[in-house]
């Protein structure tokens, strides 16, 4: 009888410890971080810079790209009223973007490395230039 009672107490204690452990675990996970005294840091706003009157983004081709086709598509976005000039080592083209400012044209590449320069010129004469290097090669390495 006493032995049974002892075992019962032992199991009850273990069970109690288990429940307390679970309760402690749940309490710890649900605890929110304490509110530490905060210090206010003021960050000086950057000096405003003059907004450029023209923007230019060339999506294709990617700089330093290696292609195996001599005809290369050049596309991007600029101001809708700008004039876009695409210049390669041996050819050049002047195009106007659509109403959304998107432009696209094709140029012929020479063998090896080609320097591609895209110049967008706003009606007031301001311009923006993006330079890329594109390599035409059919070498397998």
């Amino acid at each position, binding site marked *: 009888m006493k032995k049974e009672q002892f075992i019962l107490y032992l199991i009850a204690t273990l069970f109690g410890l288990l429940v307390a452990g679970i309760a402690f675990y749940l309490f710890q996970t649900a605890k929110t971080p304490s509110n530490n005294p905060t210090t206010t840091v003021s960050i000086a706003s950057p000096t405003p810079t003059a907004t450029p009157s023209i923007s230019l983004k060339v999506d294709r081709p990617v700089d330093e790209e290696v292609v195996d086709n001599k005809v290369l598509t050049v596309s991007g976005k600029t101001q809708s009223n700008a004039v876009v000039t695409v210049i390669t*080592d041996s050819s050049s083209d002047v195009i106007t973007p659509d109403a959304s400012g998107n432009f696209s044209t094709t140029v012929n590449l020479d063998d090896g490395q080609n320097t591609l320069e895209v110049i967008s*010129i706003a*009606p007031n004469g301001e311009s923006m230039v993006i330079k890329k290097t594109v390599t035409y090669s059919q070498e397998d390495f």
Partner: protein
Amino acid sequence: MYKRTLLSLLLAVYCLILPNAVHAQSVTPEDKTNQIRDQLITNIASRVAQLKLVEKRGIIGVVTNATNTQITVNDSQNNTRFIDVDELTKFSNPDSEGSFGISDITNGTTIGILGLYNKESRRILARFVTVTTSPVIIHGGVTAVDNAAYAINVATEDGKQMTVDVENLTKTYSFTQETDYIKSGFSKIKENYNIIAIGALDKKNKDTLIATRIIFFPEIPSSPKINSALENVQKSK
């Protein structure tokens, strides 16, 4: 009564503790298959990452240093690039007669490099190195036209003033909204036009460009930045 309580307590403990232990110990064939699958996925992902780490790239740069195993160049964006050279790298120079190798590459030479770019080390393992010449492109506004000498003075947005020599072989184009991009002539170029000139710098005078192509825009004036740049240059003098 005690036995029943004892049993129910034991059952409760069993339900709370033992299931996880039992699951952890028994490895079924399904688990093993899953482990192998996970391992395979990890291995494939690692190999794909390795393959993606290297890609073909081509750059143009001016040599700043060259050794038997490495070339250092300044690329078109003015970044310093390190090029590794090995026994498989082929060198060429269109103007050279006979063999051409790494020892023939000197500082200041413009070269085109085609090779394998490692995204991690940011170095290119060169497979082809070629001595190249890129045309010079200047863009600005026409400040003066010399009809007698067939020359145009062009001021750029960075305050430079260049003389553009127009030769017999120079191709001249103009662009207007009405006519689009058409062939034109030297006589149509006027002061304050927006202009792009493409060619090579005169070896004797670095402020003179011998033009191969000229594109001018009669409807677009010189950039307003040009005047302020020229003023700043004059003030600094």
